[in-house]
Every structure is written in structure tokens, then in C-alpha cells.
């Protein structure tokens, strides 16, 4: 079997649908925690970089999302304290924390998705389904890195023009606003130019052929089975209500019936599957190296 990134794109796509789809439809704290840590470890293992800035920004987002819920929603029997006439409850706070954890978990998972599913893989999958859709998808995926590099260019140019002053917060903010406005104008214009250019080249008219080396191996089949079986178990448990968890007005306990436990274990396995696969490959590599 090969590493996670080398699997067949269709199999990877199914894996992501399974792991994100099940995480989005459950508010069970166990599943959410497994989803968050599974995706976080997956990202670290797959990317092999620290990304301190990304984690910090996600942490900030997490805190904001977690705090918003108890401020706006006052359901729950355990009142912590009262602000003006609004009780802040433990249940609303925990709901906010787990909802934020679910969102952050999915964001991390999507981060690994963009890392693994490169444009050629997406074209491989969607090019057969709809040429227009694959064109839009690849353009959309390209958009974010393109914006980033362009922003960097504009900022450097502005700096070179001497518009920034290092000792002035207000000026810095004004400069950032200017860059934002420049970028908005540029991206609109760029979008039109790109669309015209692509149309001139005949994109989107007919299905385009593309060369790819992807094939469906035995390893892909095993991986597919490993991801379909836990998903089926999870869906069974969710449909039976075994993995239900209610926050309001009082929190229900975490279900620990056999089916619920099966569901948690299945989700944990599914969530950490890329990590397990990478570790397995690493062990095998080391084993083979040791034999030389």
C-alpha cells in the first residue's frame, strides 16, 4: 500500500465525504473531540510543518465562536452568572465550545484536503463528470494562493513607495485598508481577464482530455473498505439515536451502550486513518532500510 497522498483521488474523495459528512451531523462531544484531534494530527503528519500562525489564528477563531453562543443564547439550567438581564449558562458555553471545535475540526480537515487533493486530482475526478465544474473548481482553488502572492507583491510595492510608517498604528491600519481595496479591484479585474482568456482558448466548450497516472490498486480497495465499514457503523448509530447528545436545557450523559461505543471507535479510526497509514508507511520504510 502507498502513502495517503498517493491513493486514488476517487478513494480519497470518498474518504473526505465520509469523515466530514459524519462529523457535521453529530453534536456528540466524543465524536467532535475525535474529529478535531484526528484532523489536527493528520495535518501535522501530512504537512510535516509546524504552521504556528495557522494554529494561532484557528485558536482565535475557536475562542470567538465559543464565546458568541453563551452571549446570544441563554438556554440551560446551570446559570454561571448574569450579565444585565441575561443569564450566562454552562450548557450554552459548552455548546459554543463544541460547536466551535466541530467547525475548527472541519477547517483542519479541509486544510488537509487542499494539501492532498491537488488540482490535477480534482480535474481527474470532476473532468469526467462536468468540464465546466472542473474548470470552476480549479480556478477557485487557485484563487486563494494567487491572492496571497498578489497581496505580498502589493504590500512590498507600497512599502517601496514609502507609504508605510513603522511608528504609527493608525497609518498602518490605513495602509492595510488601501491594500485591501487594491486587492478587491485587482481580483475583480483579474477574474474578468482570466475568464475572457480561458474562453478564447476554448475552455468549457468540450470535455478536455488530461493525462494522469492514477489507477485503482488493491491498496485502494483495502482503504475503501476500511473507510466504508466504519462509516456504515457510524451512520447506523446516528440513525438509531445512540450517539445523540443534547445540551439543552440540561446536558444528557454520554451514551456508552455497545452501539455508541462502536460508533466512537469507528469514528476515531476513520479520523486517524491518514495518520495510521503514514505511520505504517514510515515503519515499513525503516524496516526496508534496516534490511539493506
Amino acid at each position, binding site marked *: 500500500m502507498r502513502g495517503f497522498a498517493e491513493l486514488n483521488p476517487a478513494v480519497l474523495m470518498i474518504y473526505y465525504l465520509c469523515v466530514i459528512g459524519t462529523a457535521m451531523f453529530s453534536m456528540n462531544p466524543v465524536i467532535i473531540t475525535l474529529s478535531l484531534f484526528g484532523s489536527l494530527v493528520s495535518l501535522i503528519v501530512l504537512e510535516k510543518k509546524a504552521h504556528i500562525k495557522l494554529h494561532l489564528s484557528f485558536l482565535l477563531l475557536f475562542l470567538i465562536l465559543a464565546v458568541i453562543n453563551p452571549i446570544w443564547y441563554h438556554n440551560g439550567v446551570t446559570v*454561571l452568572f448574569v450579565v444585565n438581564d441575561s443569564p450566562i449558562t454552562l450548557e450554552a458555553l459548552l455548546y459554543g465550545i463544541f460547536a466551535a471545535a466541530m467547525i475548527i475540526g472541519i477547517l483542519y480537515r479541509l486544510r488537509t484536503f487542499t494539501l492532498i487533493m491537488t488540482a490535477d486530482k480534482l480535474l481527474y475526478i470532476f473532468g469526467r463528470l462536468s468540464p465546466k465544474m472542473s474548470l470552476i473548481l480549479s480556478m477557485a482553488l487557485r484563487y486563494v494562493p494567487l491572492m496571497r502572492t498578489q497581496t505580498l507583491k502589493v504590500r512590498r510595492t507600497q512599502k517601496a513607495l514609502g507609504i508605510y510608517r513603522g511608528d504609527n498604528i493608525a*497609518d498602518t491600519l490605513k495602509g492595510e485598508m488601501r491594500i485591501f481595496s487594491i486587492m478587491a479591484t485587482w481580483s475583480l479585474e483579474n477574474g474578468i481577464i482570466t475568464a475572457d482568456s480561458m474562453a478564447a482558448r476554448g475552455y468549457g466548450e468540450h470535455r478536455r482530455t488530461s493525462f494522469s497516472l492514477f489507477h485503482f490498486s488493491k491498496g485502494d480497495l483495502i482503504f475503501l473498505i476500511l473507510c466504508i465499514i466504519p462509516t456504515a457503523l457510524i451512520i447506523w448509530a446516528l440513525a438509531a439515536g445512540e450517539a445523540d447528545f443534547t445540551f439543552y436545557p440540561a446536558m444528557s450523559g454520554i451514551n456508552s451502550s455497545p452501539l455508541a461505543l462502536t460508533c466512537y471507535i469507528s469514528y476515531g479510526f476513520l479520523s486517524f486513518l491518514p495518520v495510521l497509514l503514514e505511520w505504517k508507511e514510515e515503519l515499513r520504510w525503516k524496516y526496508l532500510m534496516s534490511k539493506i
Partner: protein
Amino acid sequence: MKKKVLSVLSIIVTAALALSCAAVASSSVSDIAASAVEEIIGYELGLSGASSIQEWIDGELSDNAGKGSEWFVITLARSGKYDLTEYLRSLEGYIAENNIPSATSRQKDALTMIAAGHESPYINETAENSVGKQGIMSMIYGLHLLNNGAECENYTASKLVNELIGMQYDDGGWALMGEHGDIDVTAMTVQALAPNINENKAVSEALERAVVFMSEKQLEDGDYQSFGTKNPESAAQVLIAVSALGIDISDARFVKNGHTLIDGIMKYQLPDGSFTHTEGGNSNKTATVQAFMALTAYRLNAEKGDRFYDLTKSFDPERNTERDNNENITSEQQITTAPETTASSPAVTTKSSGNDYIKTEYGKTSDYKIIAYIIIGAAAAAVCIILFLLKKRRISNFIAVIILAAGAVCFIFFTDFRSKEEYYSGDFPEKTDIVGTVTLTIRCDTIAGKDKNEYVPANGIILDTKEFAIEKGDTVYDILTEAGRKYGIQLESKSGGYVAGINYLYEFDYGDLSGWIYHVNSDAPFVMCSEYELSDGDKIEWLYTCELGNDLM
């Protein structure tokens, strides 16, 4: 015509029957009523801390003169045994100091004066300026006033009687609104009309139809239900009404399944002597005072052949001989005005004075606020120093820091953090400028028993009728918030006035059209609850609907 003759005949026959068997049948029932009255008095004395009835009158009842003790005083006055001087002085003082906006409240006060044997120009004045000013209730009370000798230019007793008869519905009942008779309003109307029964045929026929209506509405246990809730007050009103007509308790029309009206009332008595509004509920002032009145009314009729509302009789024994010509006064209130005395209603009694409240509240909240201001100031100063040391010395940097600090100070200033215990302690700002009282009920009958939600009470009553004092400008939302604090009911409101949830029951919990709506005096206003300003005597109900309010009408 034949029908009319028959109905008149039947009422005469039953009245005769009732009189003939009254002495026999009622002796044991009379004992029950007498002991229940004793128990109620015992309960009330215990509540007020008085050792005798006279002490109770001079103490608590006088303190609440004009503010809810009228019905107790009227009932006690009927015995003629007590000295009401202290109470009357207090009532006069209250009337002189307050401009009472509610017509029915003024009438109630005037009736109390008559019952206490007090002659005051206020009685005629009230009759003059209140009759018909507040719907059917002010006509009923007004008729009681006129029945008891009050005079007024616009109305005579017979004119009022005719108007009231004209308001009778086809089913024989009366109501505040709508197309169908309401048991309480019907009974109260009968109480006022009863003294005029011999005036003309139309009156006796109307009363006969009303008796049939009241008889048909009686339930298996001898009690009644009002707005879908079984309660003792309706039965109490009917008992006063039938006593006023001289119908005996054992009359077949008011015995259902072997249960009389008194059985229907006694069913709600608690071991401590007080009464509940609903079966299995807590003791309720309205229910207790109305049971007290009804049992007294029954005894007056059974033992002396008196009508409860012949108020003047308490003091003028000679008039007893000409009672057929005399009129009685009575009234009930449960629909429009709740006769709760202040003592048991925490909404009205607040012990601390306004100044105390402000002092303690300020002391508590300012503690943490001052610390917060100091921290913000220190942080801002620290940031400024760091900026200075880092040589980022542009003035705009420091302005930005100051703006941020000012924002934080504003946030602390406009928020008020309190602990759960403090918020729900019932320690509420004392209302200084009270202009009246309103009642509040929170019910979810529409979903009671629908599922196993533990926050839906079996009887659908989340908050039984409670009385609240209002200041000028108080809205329905203010009172709901106050109730939430006092009785620890969870509330969810969005952007100051849109109520999304009460007691953990939220809108959309029971379908797309479900949610909370409010009624004031059984009517759904068309404004947000934070914009509806209350007036004295308003009856607020918060109700859970599953069909945008259509299931509540």
C-alpha cells in the same frame, strides 16, 4: 309564551322547594362551611401574624386598604361584629392620596365603605363617574352600588338592569367579550341582578336562563372550569349567585354526581386552610378569599335567608324586614381584578426601601467595576509606556490606545455582572410610583402532556396567577422579566422584547408555528410586549401556541 310561563313557574317552584328543604338539608353542610370559614380565618391570621380578627383588621387589612384587602373586609363586615374605624381611616387616606384610574377599583372601595357602614360622598361620586366606564364589570359593580342605595344621575338601577339583560348571550351567559358566556362573569352578573328579580318578567326570565347556563356548565365534581382550567373561584362565584337567588345547596340543578357546589370548592382546600387555584397547586390568595366569600354567602342564605351583597344589612337590622325591596351588593373580581391582599403576593410586598436598594445594589456592582476600571487604566498606561520606549511616539498611537481603553470602560459601564444567587434572590428594585396592579400567568396548556418534556408541567401552568405592582410606563415585558427573577423562571428574549423561550420551552420546539404569545385581558395585542404599556387591573397571560395563536382563541 308558554315557555316563559313555564320558566317563571319553575323558578318559583324551585325557590319554594329550596326554602322548604333548606333547614333540613343544610345543617350538616352548614357545619362544613362554618368550619372551613374558621380555617380560612386561621390561615390568614397566621399569615399576617395577628392574634385576633380585630387585630388583623387594624393591622394588615388596614395597611392594604385600597390595595387588595377589600374583599376580606366586605366579608368580615357582613358579620357586623368588628370595628372597622381604623380600616376606614386608612382607606380614606389611600383614596385621598391616590388617583385610582380603574373604575372597578373605585367601585370596590365604595362597596367596602357601604359594607363598613361608612357614609361618604365618595360612594355617590364613584357611582356617578364609574358605571359603564370599564365594560361589563363596571356595570355589575355599579349595579351593586345602586342596589345598596348609592345614587347617580346617569343611571338608575332599572336602567342598568335592562342594559345588563341586553348583554346576555343566547346561551344564557355573560362574558367580557366574545360570543359565549363565561361562568365567572355570568355568576357575577346574576349576583347583581338577583335583588331586582321581582322588577319585571324580563329579569326573572334572564335569571332563569342564567341558572340553566350555570347548571349546565357544572362539572362532575361540583366545580367549574374557566379558560380550560378547573378552579374553585368559578364555583365560589356560582355559590354566591345561587345563594343570592335563594337556591339551596342541595338543589338538583347544582348537584352533579352527588357533588354540591360546596364540595366543588372544598376540593381545593389545603390542610392549612387556604385554597388553591388548581388541583394540587399551591395556596392562592384569590382562591382563598373567594372561597371565604362564597362560604359566608352560603351561610348567610342558609342561616338567615340573607343575600351576601345586602351590604347595608350588616348595620341596619331594620332593613332585614324589607329585604325583598332592598338590594344587595356584591361583586367578584376574578376575571378583571384579583382581590389579592398584599401580604402573600411577593410582587407587591417588597421590604426594603428604595434608597436601601440603590445603596446595596450600587455597593455590590461598583466593587468589581472599580477594579475593572483600574485594570483597564493600568493596561492602557502600560501600553503607552511600552510604545514610548519602543520609540513609536506618534500622537496617533496614543490616541488609538485611549480609544480602545474608552471602549473597554464603556463596556464595563453598560454591563452589569451579577451572580446567579444575587440575580434570582427576589431582591428587586422597589417600585416607588405604583399606579396599580396587574396579574401575570404563564401557561402552556397547548403542549401539556404532548410529550415527555420534563419542563412542561402536567397541568400546563408554568406560573400560576401572580399579582405585580406596576409603575407608570411598565410594559408587559418588564413584568415578565420581573416574574422571571422573582420566581426563577428561565427566559430567552432577543433584542429586548422578542420572547423566544420561557422555562426552557422555545419557539419552534413544537412545529414551525409554535412559540410564545401574550394576551392582555384575554386579547392578543398587536404590538411587541416591550411596547405594551400596562394599566391597573390588566391581566397578562403568556401562552404557548402551536398554531400562531389560533389554537388559543
